[in-house]
């Protein structure tokens, strides 16, 4: 293989979400793995077109929720029954109906932390430097541009062939992004 060490990848722009989706599907079918599509909003059906697996975030949140549930119960049982039992309004020390509101709040809080920090962990954000931004055009991806970038790390990647492939898939502009 030739050296692509000074390249980040090839970036191709498409006219609209439909063309982007068709191209993403073609890129996926051609066996590329290290590629991504860039758009100003999430496009319905793109995950399937790109052949992405389900997001793992649900599991992260579930684990956080379970920790919150157990922690919330433990906190209340321990402080109300073990650490400093107080007799309040004729209720038992282990007054479970009364533990529901706080337990619930803790489950929600922890799950929300899971959803929030899990999002950043899975997206590898925050990120200080991204070679993708070496392109001037990519800024349009947050406005009205639709892009595919095939990264040079992909085993199937080759500068000429990948560029030609994207052009054939309907790209209106392609460029090589330096690293």
């Amino acid at each position, binding site marked *: 293989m030739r050296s692509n060490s000074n390249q980040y990848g090839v970036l191709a722009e498409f006219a*609209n*979400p*439909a*063309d982007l989706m068709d191209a*993403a599907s073609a890129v996926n079918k051609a066996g590329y793995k290290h590629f*991504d*599509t*860039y*758009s*100003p*909003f*999430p*496009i*319905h059906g*793109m*995950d399937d077109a*790109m052949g*992405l697996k389900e*997001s793992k*975030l*649900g599991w992260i*949140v579930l684990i956080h929720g379970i920790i919150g549930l157990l922690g919330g119960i433990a906190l*209340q049982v321990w*402080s*109300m029954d073990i*650490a*400093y039992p*107080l007799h*309040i*309004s004729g*209720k038992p020390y282990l007054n479970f109906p009364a533990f529901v*509101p*706080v337990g*619930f*709040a*803790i489950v*929600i*809080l922890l*799950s*929300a932390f899971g*959803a*929030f920090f*899990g*999002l950043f962990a*899975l*997206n590898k*954000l*925050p*990120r*200080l430097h991204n070679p*993708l*931004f070496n392109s001037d055009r990519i*800024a*349009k*991806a*947050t*406005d*009205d541009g639709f892009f595919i970038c095939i990264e040079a790390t992909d085993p199937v990647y080759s500068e000429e062939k990948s560029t030609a492939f994207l052009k054939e898939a*309907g790209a*209106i502009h392609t460029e090589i992004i330096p690293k």
Partner: protein
Amino acid sequence: MSQNTAIVPNNQLVKGNHDFASITKLISDIPQERTPLWWYIAFGISNIVMAVMLAMIAWLIWEGVGVWGLNNPVGWAWDITNFVWWVGIGHAGTLISAILFLFRQGWRTAINRFAESMTIFAVMCAGLFPAIHVGRIWAIYWIFPLPNSMQLWPNFNSPLLWDVFAVFTYLIVSTLFWYVGLIPDLATMRDKVKGTISRLLYGTFALGWTGGNRQWQNYEKSYMILAGLSTPLVLSVHTIVSFDFAVSIIPGWHTTIFPPYFVAGAVFSGFAMVLSLMIITRKLYKLEDIMTVDHIEKMNIIILVTGTIVGFAYAIEFFIAWYGGVEYEKFAFVNRAFGPYAWAYWIMITCNVVSPQFFWVKKFRRNVALTFILSIVINIGMWFERFVIVVTSLAQDFLPSSWGYFSPTYVDVLTYIGTFGLFFTFFLLFLRFLPMVAISEVKGVLPQANPAYYRSNNGKSKTTE
């Protein structure tokens, strides 16, 4: 087999001939324009009002809660009324951003950012009151389960502590939800602004967002989960607020319908507040294409529904107060309507039950001026509702010899007014520096966002060069 009739087109969510770029421009230009003069004036006034609030709080802490008009039977009055009122207002934001999202109501995209911001600032105003009403505010950290030298723990049997957990959780989760929604738009701002410093600031908070589909995938999941978590949370927060009253045995407070009735009331007042703010903002920033009359109409329908639920709860409460045959309960309700606070009660009924009835008529629902007036009227009514609940029950409870009457002092009044300064200070900062409409979401509901648009007959044919 039958053939189908032609499709009836839904009202377009975005009016005018907008494409992706024009939406970006419409919203992202606002923070880049010169600050308008009215903004400086409004911000100045808000700051002054907030300063008054801070002075009142300082005086309260220095002197003690005696500077409020509280007296022996009435130990809670404006403080808790204001707390419940502000929390309730906040609920509309979460409802719009979370519940309408789960029900896939595309129209929410125009107003969700706006309403979410309102939520956060309203909850800040709300949280202030319980914090300052404790008397010895320097010991406020005792409400948290922190190990301390007395080896005491907070009382988890107390609804007041449930409130602490609920409101804090609500504030944090709302903020996280709001920020997740902001990230793609902050990236848009990063790519649009000219100045180096603003680019650096927007860029920092955008955290390196690229708009890649691998990011969008997790983003959508996260947004969905946060919406799913916020929905029961928002119900639970006002439910727990209602528990503050309803787990007690005070007549007029202890009634089982309180949880859903408080939630409906919260949504009712919150939507009214969103409308008041939105009607001004869309005018000032010329966003009539995005925040359309259709939005106003839909929100008025929700106001009508929740207002009617509130009216339903008033009626059922009154009936059961009689039906239950408990003397004190009966007295509490008759006393509300005909006792010393009858004026407050009838303001409440007029504003909350009578005024929304206008919205049965389509013409009124689409009348912006009337909507604006009624939205203010409803918020006044909802303040009085909380006042009636909190004060009438306390002022005249079981023992006639200890009955009293509550009159606010200037500190009560100025602290409450002052919270508007706090609210609008933050709100104006939000309008000035952040994209006030969720840009990426509005683009997502344009017909052009759907790949199918380009494949059907009326769309453009596939473009290839």
